[in-house]
């Protein structure tokens, strides 16, 4: 027996709703030996898709039934076999957690609400191992065995209680006595559950009046659930109850049944089940039950099937929980995407071709003479800004590129730094990336300027804003040696990341005024720097090694020999050829497809 957390009274182990107070028992997913809730977050998000599906199914069936839920009273023992879907009252909706209500609403509103989650969940399901499933099944089998054993014991107790209870008819309502007369075995279990409610009976007259209707309704619901499930399923999963001897025996009333008589365990195992019908009709529930053909159903399967329906559902829930427990801490598996397959050789051949071309050009082709031509407008503007600097002016060099782009960035930056150093401009180095500390040292080495310390500014955009706002140079928040940003004539950003550039433009730019930021960038940033330059937020910028060469020449410096221009051009030519080839292949494929369609047409 399990205790209701609300009223503290005992309930059947498989009950999901307290038969005494009618509140949820919250133990639908409880599995002995498996602490389902322990490792789970309060709102397990992963299971939403599957739970959603379950809720939707429930709601669909509720919509079909339009039947009020049985929530209290002794007859709730039938209803407690919660497989019968119950309509949700507004009160229950209020009791339901907010997330559940939201999920339900969404499920109702959006047809494909579960699309993405379901897809991920399906892939999760697919990735689950057989071993895992086996464990779930084993756990479930044990669990069923325990529940059945408990049920058998309780039925035995119920029979005894029924006998005792039958001797005093004082508190037994008329409807119950009539039902007992018609189906004594079936109500023995009912009687057992009634034991406690019978005590406060005198205090609950109103509730008592409602009981008959609820009891019959519950019976009808149970019967209906059996119809829904189908007898085959019930038989398939039902194990023959050793003490279900009443199946072929004549009906015995509670009065007639002695304590020694083996009790007919399940109420609906009685062959006299159809005899309930007149009682139901008399109680005004005929219309609801009339659709059920009770006679056609194998009576012995009814109770078991209700159990099994309940268990099947709980098994699904248990499986969901086991999945969740098993997947706790793991990420969702990526949705399956079609693999490249045999087309991988394209990559290898083209990659190897490009590599060979570059090696050949680097090894065999002599260096090209540097051409002299004008850079794009932003690069010219930067050159002008650099030329406008005077001896003694301070320039803050913000080193923010990563090691990957160091080859390109050193090509662009080294001649500029050398030119500034030669003109007596005070350079101060700052970085916001840990790697910037040693990359700055490499850059100074490449630029052939005296090594100096690089300050480290932590905190990304927060750090940049702090540096831009701080006027007090003694503040511990500024790296040692760094002055207020307003003191620098130019802040030269060495960048390969758009996010870093934007950090400076957005966080420092508005506080510094126009024309204080200049950028030496990787070629990948050229496109997105253009709008900032056009809006007057940058003094100018140079992007890429090619522009860097031209700028170096304009500043009277020789470009670094680290990158052979011919090899660069050869690489670009390979890409041009490949793009054209791609266009031709696509055009040819389209043409072939058209030709194939024409004869068919």
């Amino acid at each position, binding site marked *: 027996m399990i205790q209701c957390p609300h009223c503290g009274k005992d309930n059947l182990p498989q009950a999901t709703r307290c038969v005494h107070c009618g509140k949820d028992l919250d133990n639908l997913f409880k599995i002995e030996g498996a602490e389902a809730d322990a490792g789970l977050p309060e709102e397990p998000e992963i299971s939403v898709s599957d739970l959603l599906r379950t809720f939707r199914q429930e709601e669909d069936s509720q919509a079909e039934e339009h039947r009020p839920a049985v929530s209290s009273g002794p007859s709730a023992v039938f209803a407690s076999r919660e497989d019968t879907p119950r309509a949700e009252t507004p009160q229950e909706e209020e009791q339901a957690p907010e997330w559940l209500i939201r999920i339900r609403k969404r499920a109702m509103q959006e047809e494909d609400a579960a699309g993405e989650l379901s897809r991920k969940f399906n892939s999760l399901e697919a990735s689950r191992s057989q071993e895992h499933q086996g464990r779930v099944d084993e756990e479930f089998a044990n669990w069923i065995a325990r529940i059945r054993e408990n049920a058998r014991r309780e039925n035995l107790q119920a029979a005894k209680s029924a006998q005792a209870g039958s001797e005093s008819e004082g508190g037994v309502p008329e409807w119950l006595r009539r039902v007992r007369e018609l189906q004594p075995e079936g109500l023995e279990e009912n009687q057992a559950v009634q034991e406690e409610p019978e005590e406060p009976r005198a205090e609950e007259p109103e509730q008592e009046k409602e009981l008959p209707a609820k009891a019959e309704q519950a019976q009808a619901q149970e019967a209906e659930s059996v119809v829904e499930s189908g007898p085959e399923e019930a038989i398939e999963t039902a194990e023959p109850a050793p003490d279900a001897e009443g199946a072929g025996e004549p009906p015995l009333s509670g009065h007639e049944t002695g304590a020694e008589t083996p009790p007919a365990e399940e109420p609906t195992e009685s062959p006299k089940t159809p005899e309930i019908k007149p009682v139901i009709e008399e109680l005004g529930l005929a219309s609801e039950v009339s659709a059920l053909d009770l006679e056609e159903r194998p009576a012995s399967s009814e109770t078991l099937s209700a159990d099994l329906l309940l268990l099947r559902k709980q098994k699904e829930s248990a499986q969901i929980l086991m999945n969740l427990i098993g997947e706790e801490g793991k990420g969702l598996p990526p949705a399956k995407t079609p693999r490249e397959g045999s087309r991988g050789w394209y990559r290898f051949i083209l*990659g190897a071709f*490009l590599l060979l071309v570059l090696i050949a050009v680097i090894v065999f082709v002599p260096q090209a003479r540097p051409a002299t031509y004008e850079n*794009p407008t932003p690069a010219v503007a930067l050159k002008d800004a650099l030329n406008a600097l005077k001896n003694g002016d301070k320039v803050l060099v913000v080193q923010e590129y990563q090691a990957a782009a160091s080859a390109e960035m050193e090509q662009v930056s080294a001649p500029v730094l050398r030119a500034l150093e030669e003109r007596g401009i005070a350079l101060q180095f700052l970085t916001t990336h840990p790697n910037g500390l*040693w990359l700055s040292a490499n850059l100074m080495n490449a630029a052939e300027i005296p090594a100096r310390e690089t300050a480290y500014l932590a905190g990304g955009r927060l750090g940049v804003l*702090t540096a831009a706002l701080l006027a007090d140079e003694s503040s*511990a*928040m500024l790296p040692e040696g760094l002055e207020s940003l307003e003191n620098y004539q130019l802040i030269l950003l060495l960048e390969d990341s758009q996010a870093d550039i934007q950090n400076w433009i957005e966080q420092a730019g508005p506080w510094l005024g126009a024309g204080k930021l200049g950028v030496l960038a990787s070629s990948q940033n050229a496109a*997105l720097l*253009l709008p900032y330059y056009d809006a007057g937020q940058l003094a100018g910028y140079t992007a890429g090694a090619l522009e860097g060469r031209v700028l170096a020449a304009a500043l009277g410096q020789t470009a670094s020999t680290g990158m052979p221009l011919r090899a660069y051009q050869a690489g670009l030519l390979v890409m041009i050829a490949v*793009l054209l080839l791609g266009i031709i292949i696509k055009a040819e494929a389209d043409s072939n497809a058209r030709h194939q369609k024409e004869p068919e047409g």
Partner: protein
Amino acid sequence: MKKTLPILVAVLTAVFILAALILRPQLNGWLDVVLNWAVVTASAALLVAVATLLLTHLRAILRGQRGFIYSIILISAFLVSFIGALVLGLENSAYLRWVAAVQLPLETSLLGLAALVMTGAALQIFRSRGWSLLTISFGISALVFLVISLGLLQALNIPLLSTVIAYLQRLPLIGARGLLIGIGIGALLTGLRVLFGLERSWGE
């Protein structure tokens, strides 16, 4: 309370910083303090992220999970690098040379590999994406800018050609501005959602 407190903290922090940025002279001192807290906390968060990474790989080793050899490699590399910095100091030239000798070839090669992979991808791009205004304009633009990047046309020093090239180089301004504005609006809305307590990006 469990859920409202973080929202409250996020909203109050955001409101305070925005107010301080607007009323800068009055709240400047406190703004510095709060920003300092944020910077230190952000750094600590990064350290926690690193620690989580290590713990994950340590667990993989202890459980003997498939591919645990990679975890051993990662943790070994981490320990050498981390302990080296603590023992020798961050400014030690031998240590920095060692870090550079590992990181530089790896990162440069990875970016170089991207060039090789892009060559293969470029062949497939039209086949996989089909013809659309976007792919056609992309293809033409890519070809034009590849040709401009060669630097051969500029070297001819023909004034008309130089003007055309200059015009072409300005053409991406429109799309880039649209992109920046579009992304900016998206980011602004996300920030406003935090400000109004609608966004919970701290893992709830």
